[in-house]
């Protein structure tokens, strides 16, 4: 019986894709349980689905983080059936703007910024983009008056998600193992 040799870098890439798929599955899970929490406003979302993205920032390279975001958004679109609607476009724009800002904040501040700070940056970016899209494509220019309320709520939810992510980062043994396993070559 012959065995097929797989180059270590190929195996590493395959394992990482597997891990990204797992994290995206977690995102879908968190987005499902988010419905259990009461909403102060009809369009408000807590953003729990961003938790796996937030904790992945320290040991996945930007390429894999973007892939994770894409899988999360596509998965949510398929599971919720919103793939062909404005909800998908809002989610896509909000998620990608948020991750770009979070990656930049991490790059810029390095060890001097906690996950709470990164989460706040991401939430603010996502909210600005989504308010911009709402005003320009849905509600019209007069809707700027509700922007402060949404920004306040969005910042609050970013703070909550960040605090939880920070707690998970420091206490989870599973995450510690993942960090050791995938973190060593996060710059590929």
């Amino acid at each position, binding site marked *: 019986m012959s065995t097929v040799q797989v180059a270590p870098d190929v195996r590493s890439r395959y394992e990482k894709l597997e891990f990204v*798929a*797992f994290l995206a599955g977690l995102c879908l899970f968190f987005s499902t349980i988010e419905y259990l929490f009461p909403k102060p406003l009809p369009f408000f979302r807590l953003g729990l689905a961003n938790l796996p993205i937030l904790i992945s920032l320290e040991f996945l390279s930007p390429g894999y983080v973007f892939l994770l975001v894409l899988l999360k958004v596509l998965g949510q679109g398929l599971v919720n*059936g919103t793939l062909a609607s404005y909800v998908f476009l809002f989610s896509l724009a909000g998620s990608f703007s948020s991750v770009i800002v979070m990656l930049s904040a991490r790059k810029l501040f390095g060890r001097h910024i906690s996950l709470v700070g990164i989460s706040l940056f991401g939430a603010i970016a996502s909210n600005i983009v989504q308010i911009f899209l709402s005003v320009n494509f849905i509600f019209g220019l007069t809707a700027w008056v509700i922007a402060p309320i949404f920004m306040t709520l969005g910042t609050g939810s970013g703070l909550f998600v960040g605090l939880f992510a920070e707690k998970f980062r420091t206490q989870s043994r599973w995450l510690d193992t993942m960090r050791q396993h995938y973190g060593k070559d996060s710059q590929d």
Partner: protein
Amino acid sequence: MAKIRKTDSFLSRNIAAVHLFAGATLILPAYLFQQNLLVRIAQVLLFAWLATVNGKRIKWNYFVIMVTSITFFHTLNPFGEVLLSIGPYTMTRGALRGGLFRGVTIVGLVFLSLFSIRPDLKLPGKLGGLLGQVFYYFERVFEGKKKIRVKAIIESLDEILWDLFIPGETVEPAYIEGSQTTVRGWLFLFVLVGTNWFFLFYRIPFVLL
């Protein structure tokens, strides 16, 4: 391979996911070019009904608030015949129609998406394969949700994560059993697409606003 459960509805039993999606794509121009508000509202209600037939739960209060708020913000820019004046607020026919039209259109697109997109709609290529793995893990995590204890949230989450993912252990991608389009399904799609296109060209004698 792991199998993901699917909804058991007339649409999922009789129409393949890709054909349902293609049908909705054909309806889209007939919906977007429709200028009669009454017909458009009827289309939206039809899409909402189809979404519920497809097993989706519609949060009506969310969509009512959505249409109301979009309409309200549009009426803040008055144009056309004045319908109502309360203090500094003036509601005009043009602004009301424009707001209602936009609100209803946006909500209708969500309903169209809700009834035409199913989890068994396969995306092509490597990305589609990766999404299969995502759904596999989603199902596995979902099965373990009863283990979550709010008072020991991190510890219980950790237990679930250890159970489900260990580096180097790979899984086969999940699949969702799809259905074939039956004769009834084709007939249903033909009538659905045909009706929407018919009302694009046939001018009904009733006009709302």
